[in-house]
């Protein structure tokens, strides 16, 4: 009698497992709204922003040559530091450098920097006023001072 009870409950478990599996698939398919175009674009903005941040963090300024002239003393610094150094010099070198870095990128990109609470626009001259955007940030050091560079990508 006890063994019979055991078999009944075992059948019930198996049956319920099958039902549970089927039910979970139904629930998940109902919950999944699918991939929407906005999400795809947002993801691509994020990818581009991260790629640019990685690039300026990991590449030396000498890799900008020959498009951008780099002095011997700046050849081994990171592109992120080079960008801020040139921005501080108040010439168009920072803009040229940014344009060179971003020339092959698909979406419009803004580059900001700050050493305190205030963000300064490094590139382009005026902001794009994006409707949708995603960003990525990095830290860099210039003349014993830490700066944050924010890369914003959008449309």
């Amino acid at each position, binding site marked *: 009698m*006890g063994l019979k009870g055991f078999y009944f409950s075992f059948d019930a478990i198996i049956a319920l497992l099958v039902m549970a599996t089927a039910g979970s*698939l139904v629930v998940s398919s109902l919950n999944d709204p699918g*991939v*929407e175009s906005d999400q795809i674009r947002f993801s691509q903005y994020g990818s581009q922003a991260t790629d640019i941040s990685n690039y300026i*963090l990991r590449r030396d300024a000498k890799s900008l040559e020959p498009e951008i002239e780099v002095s011997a003393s700046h050849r081994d610094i990171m592109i992120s530091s080079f960008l801020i150094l040139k921005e501080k010099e108040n010439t168009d070198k920072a803009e040229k450098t940014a344009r060179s870095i971003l020339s092959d990128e698909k979406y419009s990109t803004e580059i900001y920097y700050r050493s305190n609470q205030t963000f300064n626009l490094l590139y382009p001259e005026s902001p794009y006023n994006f409707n949708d955007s995603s960003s990525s940030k990095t*830290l860099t050091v210039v003349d014993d001072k*830490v700066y*944050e560079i924010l890369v914003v990508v959008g449309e």
Partner: protein
Amino acid sequence: MKGVAYTPFALIAASLLLMLFSVPLGANPQNIDLQINSLESSHTYQASINSALTLISSKSLNAHLKGFNQEIINSNNSLNNPEQKFISSYSLKSNKGDTTAENLQKRLKSLINETEEIKINFGEVKSVSSEGLKLNADQNIRYRYTDYILNLKYGRKIDEVDVPVEGAIDPLNYFRAGEIINYSICGYNKPAYKLGKARQSSGFENVYGKALVEPENMSQVNNKGEKILFSREPNSYELSDFLAVVSLSDSTLNTDTEWMAGFNLSRPVKTGQSVILKNDEAYISHFREIIDRKCFVESEEAPDIFQRMKNSTSKSSYGILTYKYDSNASLANGDYNLVDQRELGVKVSGVSSVEHGQGERSWFRADEDNMDYWNLSSLSN
């Protein structure tokens, strides 16, 4: 009855399974992609924290070296145990800008959002050594970064900091020659590089000039008498005006000027580079640049950064040296570390003696051991 009793357990187990299934299946590829993007972005930021902390520590140690060597100069006394004194006098609190631990902490806190947190712990420098124009500091730096939105915690430990040395005064030069020379790196490993060898030449020694490689428009070339033409077809040019001609083909040249033929280039040569020709060999020369800039190159036959604090000219595996001009003719120059031992120096072809070309620096001598170390003994004379 027992079957009924077991069934509620079965229901509970099945419900749990239902929940477990529904969570991963609810994660669509796009959500996963967004999460990966967030993680990649966060990883990039963390890498930049790492880089910023290392750079700040490196700059702080270089600033300390500047002050440390300045004190040696001010006291006019060399040190017995400079490494230990360098470490014991170092503190991240004694520098300017963000190179103090406190200021750096404040700065980073002002740059992060309220949903993030960063804690940094700068440990003491346990040991320091030099390697050419670089210090290696055994310094324990730890930091912990938390992003509460992404629910990320990231801790990292930096054990070693490389410090490119720039700007500090070289004490040895001050002790030996009374001259203030600041450390700066030349950017090349030795003062000359062999460019290659020719099959035949017109027979000459000690030519010094500037390279001119395959000029497109000869009418725009000025001062040909100071230039050494490198060409695959030199006979297509008017050669007599040049200081010398290096032909990359085998044909003999019919010209009054000095020439090499069948030259085999073992490294690229660019227009404007300084070139020395000697017998059937050519070299790219940086000797004059080192003398003029007073920059430093590495050599195992010269003292290192800490030996210089001891006023020692002993050789080190991580030694550095520069060349300098000394206005005192009796000490006129060789390696700065041999400034008072001129008789040990050797003349260098194309620098101390120039038979064809300009810019002879007849006072110049180089240490023979260094010339051997750099495989440049064929330029010694």
